[in-house]
């Protein structure tokens, strides 16, 4: 009797297996942290040099944060503003000059990505005086820019919003 009862489950095993696999997969993917290194950039640009050593303000190049949602990646023209003269003969800087002369944009690799369903806006954060570091990590010490893991974690965003009494309505970021 008892055996029969167990046997009756046997035909269902593939189904259980499938369900278990799916659940495990979901857990694994969710737990799958992003790589600790950033993608390889076309030009070996060092934030540690610019933001760290020379103390250039983040907003000098990423001025979009004051105007709206996007921070901007600086245009080639922006880079050339300094590199027309500064370190003009270094091999990596030459690449900028080449792009400038060829009037070709530089295809930088995206480091911090957000889910498609998130509509982030830099401006309100900057206006409230949130330091760039809070979300981007200590960029001034990064030679190669690495993604800041927590940016892709909604609970981290919500915690901060809660602490600072900011809006935690879903429509704040999702629509």
């Amino acid at each position, binding site marked *: 009797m008892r055996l029969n009862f167990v046997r009756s489950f*046997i035909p269902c*095993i593939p189904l259980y*297996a499938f369900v*278990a*696999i799916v659940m*495990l*997969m979901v857990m*694994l*993917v969710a737990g*799958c942290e*992003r*790589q600790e290194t950033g*993608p390889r950039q076309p030009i070996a640009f060092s934030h540690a040099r610019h933001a760290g050593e020379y103390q250039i303000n983040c907003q000098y190049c990423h001025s*979009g944060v004051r*105007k*709206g*949602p*996007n921070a*901007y*990646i*600086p*245009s*080639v*023209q*922006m880079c050339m503003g300094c590199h027309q003269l500064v370190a003009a003969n270094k091999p990596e800087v030459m690449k900028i000059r080449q*792009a*400038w002369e060829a*009037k*070709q*944009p*530089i*295809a*930088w*690799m*995206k480091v911090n*990505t957000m*889910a*498609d*369903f998130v*509509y982030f*806006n830099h*401006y*309100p954060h900057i*206006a409230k005086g949130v330091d760039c570091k809070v979300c981007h990590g200590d960029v001034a010490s990064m030679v190669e820019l690495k993604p800041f893991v927590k940016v892709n974690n909604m609970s981290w965003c919500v915690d901060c919003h809660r602490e600072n009494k900011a*809006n935690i*309505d*879903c*429509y*704040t970021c*999702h*629509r």
Partner: protein
Amino acid sequence: MELKRRDFLKILGGATVATALPGCTPKKPQSLIPYVIPHEEIIPGKSVWYAGVCRECPAGCGIHVRVREGRAVKVEGNPLNPVNSGSLCSRGQASLQGLYNPDRIQHPLRKRPDGSWEQLSWQQAEEYLLEQLNGVIRNGKGNSIAWMTPHLTGSLDALIEDFLGAVGSRRRIRYEPIAFEALKRANRISFGRAEIPDHDFASAKFILSFGADFLETWISPVGYTKDFTATRAFDAGAGAKYVYVGPRLSLTATNADEWIAPKPGTEGALAMGMVNVILTSGEAKGISLADSNEILAMTRGFAPKQVEEITGIKAERIRELALEMAAAGSSIAVGGGTVLGSDTEVATLTAINLLNTICGNIGKTVRFDTPLTLSHLQSYADLTRFVQSMEQGEISALFFTETNPVFSTPPALNFTHAMTRVPLSVAFSSFMDETTAQATFVLPVHTPLESWGDYEPKRGAYGLMQPVMQPVFPTTKMSGDVLIAINDKIGRRTTFSTSEQPFFEYVKDRWNSLHRQFGEKQEFDRWWTEALANGGVFRPSSGPFAVRWTGTASELSGILGELKRGETPPDFVLVTSPSINLYDGRGANRPWLQEVPDPMTQITWGNWIEIHPTDAEKLNIKRGDVVQLTTQHGVLEAPAYVYAGVRPGVVAMPIGQGHSEYGRYAKGNGANVYALFPPLPLSSSGGMQWSNIGVRVVNRGEHVKLADVAGSDYLHGRNIVQVVSIEELLRQTKELQEGTYKEEEGFGKPGSASMYQEHEHPDHRWGMTIDLDKCTGCSACVTACYAENNIPVVGKEQVQLGRELSWLRIERYFDDPPADPQAPHNPNAEFLPMLCQQCDNAPCEPVCPVYAAYHTPEGLNAQVYNRCVGTRYCSNNCPYKVRRFNWFDYEWPEPLNWQLNPDVTVRSKGVMEKCTFCVQRVVEGKNNAKMEGRSVADGEITTACQQACPAQAIVFGDLKDPESNVNKLREKNKPRGYRVLEELNTQPAVVYLKEIRS
């Protein structure tokens, strides 16, 4: 087989790792490509708006195009342009789908002898064209070169004239199928001016339309709707009376207080009867006694009793109508559309002119000081003469610019055959329409949104167009640039051709002369920049000037006498009208215009034949039965739409469908109505006969399922659309002013008991007030919603299955039929824009197992797509049926996807969606306010539907702000306010204001 527990776990573990591994690889890195030199106007993530002119129909409304990161994503009306003052119809909004149409021609094409196309480079194409042209010119046959365009004004028009001048030809055809020939003829007879006047509905207190569908397609529908609401809405004060005369209950007709359907073709006699009554009762205004006597003489034979015999309208009714119009002070009578189309059409419009004259309307509501440039169009008769010369081989080269005569002329005229007699036919075209397909040579040109240009719809309104983005296809060119290059090579050398942007310089040069002509004090460059930003220069009229009645009795008695012959109609009379969505057929390849339902019939993706129930019964026709219509000139089949909105003995069809070419969305939908039209122009006016055609109606014995979205034709006693009589409303309003007004009490009414806890809305509570008395049902809001919210077009089959995804729909309900089936039935339609009601006690919220539907602190019923697992419980529980389910992943064929609003998520399969009150616009408004350190101002945030509405029926705002317009409207119109199905205690945020019946 025994499977041990341990084995099972091993297999499971292995399989899990194998499947999970690929999931753990990091997301493929994406690149971020900044500008080489940043564009000074473009801020990534922020919209830029460019002004322009809509070229989807001759009305020439002003537009604002929203551009994000260099891509046009939405078209709205330009508030500065007096033609439409800020609103835009469905067709105008769908111009984006012309720009991004996946069926655009991308390369110059030459037809091989076997009929296939050979792709050329632009250089080859230009060389070939010049070689051919020079051949013609060298043979001394320059005057056999012809150019055919739709209605054009301004620079492109001048450039074509330049070209024809250079080759020594005067063969220029400006053709529109809807060209108002009869109106021009009647105005020449009446006032000595062969012009189309401007109409001022805003100051008329009595509106009488003889078949002119001025809320849909007639002359300038957006502007007229605006004016119409201004004079008629209860809010505006008096509330003008409006009567519609014509055989078919069009959308324009159903908005009238009364629909009168005389025998087809006798509407002019009715006007004459009214003239007779007004003159004999001494109510005429603004004319001398001598004129009055002369006009009275013309109305001999049109005494009310006699008119009753001709028209079938009771003499008493004619008398009342006439006296009411005369007593109104300011009135307007207009004529067009379905009452025309017989040889009496000029007489009918002359009679209407008489009526306007004796009511003192000429120079007041009918204004010749700002006539429409449409007056310069040639007539259909001119076109037929031109086709004859094509047939006789007199034309050696024929150019087309964005015109499609092969489709928009009666096939019996055989334009296609005439084209085979022209050795070189060149189409400057963006789409492979019927005419382009017949041409021997095709040059792919920019759409208007990619081009420079200017357009003057009426005197004094100079609209300016600019390219709102880089061309979608790098291999298309601006018509003007191509023309300047050609002009240059054939010897009309100009300074422009050396410029990098020749046509731009040409337009600017023309505007320079306008600048001098206007004697502007401002320097040109500033004036020009301002004009660009404003979308043109709009000069006020120098004031109405007196236009005198010049028609003499001797001249007119013959013409007007024709109206006395009450026409004996054949079995059936066919009347047709341009479709509100597709106009004369040019909108047919825009998927939105196919999917947004026709407001009256609620049918999508196809056309239909309207037939009266009594006639249908005789022929045993039911709704959806395939009916064959036969005239002397052609045959077509289409499904029947049986309803009492056409006079018995009349069948009606909308023009616009039945394309055999023109792209994937246009092809194969419905039947081409032009096939039924006679090829000969009407002798009286020279216009095309598109109504009042004798037709044979045969039931084909087949049945098709109409792709209509109407749940039901009638309300079945539910108070979804509520109507109040003017008497009752006035009584209630008086009570309100005296403070004695008592609101109805009941379950679900504000303040009634409820088992639900009230929501707290700390900052804002968004709400909407929709005035049903203003709503005309035009559906511009529906298209705006599609454009703003990335709503997919699902196609005919899915609509038939009830799976359309519109977040906002216009519900149409007919008045209930009378209990006695023999009694006459006026099916007068009411419209109700239905969207998510953003309920306080939302039935959708508690049933969602995953909290995808929830209530936001600002009172919106949010739908969180990433939470949604697609149980559809919410939709089942929604009493308003406004939730839509994504049954598939819908696709936008490249480059249609370029139009998608980057601020709104594109939903995927298995997700429920619905109206969000345009939350992206709300958030943008709040952010803008935050950036300027202030709170959101009332009226600053508009929803897409509100922005588009030409009638301004929709008002959105913050209910927490007592001074907001949305609140004030509710307060002021308290007796009219109601909420749909409020007895369910859903506490919606949308309040409708009852429609008023007089």
